[in-house]
């Protein structure tokens, strides 16, 4: 019932205006009657504890009186008293052996003690009582705070105080701020993963260049003999457009010319080109062995999503005009296939 109330309340507010948090009237969470009841219960507990404290205080008073009595008794050899005989009768008599007391130690064991020893025992008992009273007083103090809190809640709920709760949102763009924080985080994660992907791609392309360098004779061989163009994989347009890497574009230009080169003059150009490539490759600080590992991993993990286009030998020029990344990519795939 209460939960339903809250929901309605929130819905109402959300519809009314675009708020970031939720506004709940306190009375819908804690009805004033309930808070009052809770406070009454706590008050009852307090009075119960206070009774206990009073009882203990009574014991303590008795104990101090007894200490005084036991202290005084040995002053005289005997005292005239009324000796109780059962609960309803007594005899006139006297207390004798006034420095001898039988003290209960607990569990039905008694010990003969002198006045001083008895006083020590009684003082220890008194200390125990005091600590008990202290504990109870602490509990009462806590309960009193609790009761005052409940009272406050009750009065606040009765007055119609409202609780405003706003989730703390980190600096996010304006559009995202309106949304709940999760979509924003999702976006961020997506961006991060995208960056990772792009980096991977970049690496791959670099590797491809390397691989191409190594495989240059083979490739040229193939090209020249069979006259079949290597399969060119057009990666999705977003990949190529989203990845403007300056360094790569340089090398890729070289690469594209490389591809062209073997067709015209197979063996002549390859060696110097390869050296040049190597030089370029040494810049990005990527060891060759690692590259190879990466390449295999990438290819195995990534499904082939490009399209294969076969070109005749004549249309080779069009290849050069193509964006550099796709040009580099197919070679690696080609190489992989060959392996």
């Amino acid at each position: 019932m209460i939960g339903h109330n809250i929901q309605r309340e929130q819905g109402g507010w959300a519809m009314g205006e675009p708020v970031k948090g939720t506004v709940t009237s306190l009375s819908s969470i804690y009805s004033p009657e309930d808070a009052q009841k809770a406070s009454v219960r706590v008050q009852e507990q307090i009075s119960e504890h206070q009774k206990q404290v009073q009882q203990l205080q009574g014991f303590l008073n008795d104990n101090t009186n007894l200490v005084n009595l036991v202290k005084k008794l040995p002053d005289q050899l005997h005292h005239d008293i009324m000796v109780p005989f059962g609960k309803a009768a007594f005899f006139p008599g006297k207390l004798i052996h006034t420095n001898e007391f039988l003290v209960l130690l607990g569990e039905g064991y008694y010990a003969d003690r002198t006045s001083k020893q008895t006083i020590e025992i009684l003082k220890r008992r008194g200390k125990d009582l005091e600590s008990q009273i202290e504990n109870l007083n602490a509990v009462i103090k806590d309960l009193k705070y609790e009761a005052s809190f409940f009272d406050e809640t009750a009065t606040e709920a009765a007055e119609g105080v409202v609780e405003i709760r706003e989730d703390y949102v980190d600096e996010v763009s304006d559009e995202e701020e309106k949304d709940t924080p999760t979509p924003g985080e999702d976006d961020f994660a997506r961006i991060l993963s995208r960056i990772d992907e792009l980096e991977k791609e970049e690496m791959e392309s670099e590797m491809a260049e390397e691989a191409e360098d190594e495989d240059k004779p083979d490739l040229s061989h193939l090209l020249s003999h069979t006259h079949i163009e290597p399969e060119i994989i057009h990666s999705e347009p977003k990949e190529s457009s989203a990845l403007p890497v300056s360094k790569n574009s340089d090398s890729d230009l070289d690469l594209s010319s490389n591809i062209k080169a073997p067709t015209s003059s197979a063996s002549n150009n390859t060696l110097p080109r390869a050296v040049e490539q190597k030089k370029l490759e040494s810049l990005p600080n990527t060891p060759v062995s690692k590259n190879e590992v990466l390449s295999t991993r990438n290819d195995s993990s990534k499904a082939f999503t490009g399209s294969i286009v076969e070109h005749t030998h004549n249309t080779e020029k069009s290849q050069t005009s193509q964006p550099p990344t796709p040009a580099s990519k197919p070679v690696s795939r080609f190489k992989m296939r060959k392996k």
Partner: protein
Amino acid sequence: MDQDRLAEEKIKRFEEFVDRRLKPDLVRAIGERDKVFEQQKVFSDLRRNLESLEKNSVTSLRSMVNLGSEVYAQADVPDTRHIFVDVGLGFHVELTWSEALKIIPVREEKFARQIEEYTRLIAQIKAQIKMVSQGIRELLQLPAE
């Protein structure tokens, strides 16, 4: 519909009567009776003790007096022939053994009468509770137990 509501109200009143009036009364009556039982026991103990004193013709007595908090001291009674007996309302009368043994049975008898009275009262309250709960059952149209 209207009758149902009326019956419900009646049931509520009956239950309140049982819970707020009859049950506390019952508890109080039982408590009172227990107190009287205790008194009776005290006096019967006293009578028995006096009888044993008389039989053994004990004239002096040593006993332990509870000073409180289970601390005992020895006490000596040089002459047991005179005893102060509680005769009610905080009065203690000095009596000899024979006098005490006459008075104590009177007290005991009085306690017995009181106990009987309380027992009757308790039975009465219990009967009332049963009757009211029977009434509630009828209002709810439940079969009798």
